[in-house]
């Protein structure tokens, strides 16, 4: 999956080293086109979107899954926040609503690992 081991890093020099390593795995990353979008408008932030985004990052790291996590502004479904949209390999995105930190593990496991859409959490498709 193009994941490399990372030392404890604090300095800018270590960031340079990281770059060398990252370049080696970049081809793999480009070929994985999984994109996870988290709504970060006022509505999302107030509903816990920042924490959900970090839970997703942690889960991806734990499971060594390569994906791009991106934040966007409000898309107009404020009552359903936090909103998380998953797009894989050019397929239409699936948007899940009311995603709490507790739901993140199941979301990643079902959607990204097993390839199952969790229908009861979906609020829009495509």
């Amino acid at each position: 999956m193009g994941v490399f081991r990372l030392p404890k890093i604090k300095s800018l020099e270590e960031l340079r080293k990281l770059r060398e390593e990252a370049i080696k795995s970049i081809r793999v990353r480009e070929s994985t086109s999984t994109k996870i979008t988290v709504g970060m408008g006022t509505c999302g932030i107030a509903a816990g979107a920042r924490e959900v985004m970090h839970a997703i990052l942690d889960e991806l790291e734990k499971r060594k899954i390569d994906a791009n996590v991106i934040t966007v502004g409000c898309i107009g479904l404020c009552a359903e926040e936090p909103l998380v949209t998953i797009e894989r390999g050019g397929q239409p995105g699936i948007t899940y609503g009311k995603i709490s930190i507790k739901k993140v593990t199941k979301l990643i496991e079902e959607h990204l690992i097993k390839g199952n859409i969790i229908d009861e959490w979906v609020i829009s498709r495509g």
Partner: protein
Amino acid sequence: MRELSLHILDAVQNSIEADANRIYIKIKEDFGRDKLIIEIEDNGKGMTTEFLKEVLDPFKTTRKTRHVGLGLPLFSAAAENCNGDFKITSKKDKGTKITATFQYSHIDRAPLGDMVGTIVAILCSDKEIDLFYHHQVDNKKFEFNTQKLKKILGNISLANINAIKWLKSYLKYNFKKLYKNGGV
């Protein structure tokens, strides 16, 4: 909101929506004067004088998805409830600057909270932005800017999962140093 860092994240989202590509965050925790000052400045499209007058009214917003903009009124109320004040200046096509001042020791002042979480969330934006961050606690300072980091990373995005991991560890380490003698 439970943390001032969430207000900061929210205000920066406004800057991003306003097409800013340079965003400055300046935080000053001044124990001597018992003040916490948060400044957020951007080079976005700014606001007209008329709109600026109304911007703290929750029923005004530029967004089309919903007709009530709550972000700035909430931030402003948070400052005013803590014996502080909230200023916003803006120039059309030049940018906007927000200054929120709090009485540091005020019982109702929310903690700054997870600034690492806020910075990482900002840098994962789908828009191309540069962040200039300056944080002072008493007489200690921590500064960083993404231009410098991007230069080192070259064609690797800062939103790359490994770059994020590095950034988190870099920020955590520096905040720990900054807060060695107290503060929240």
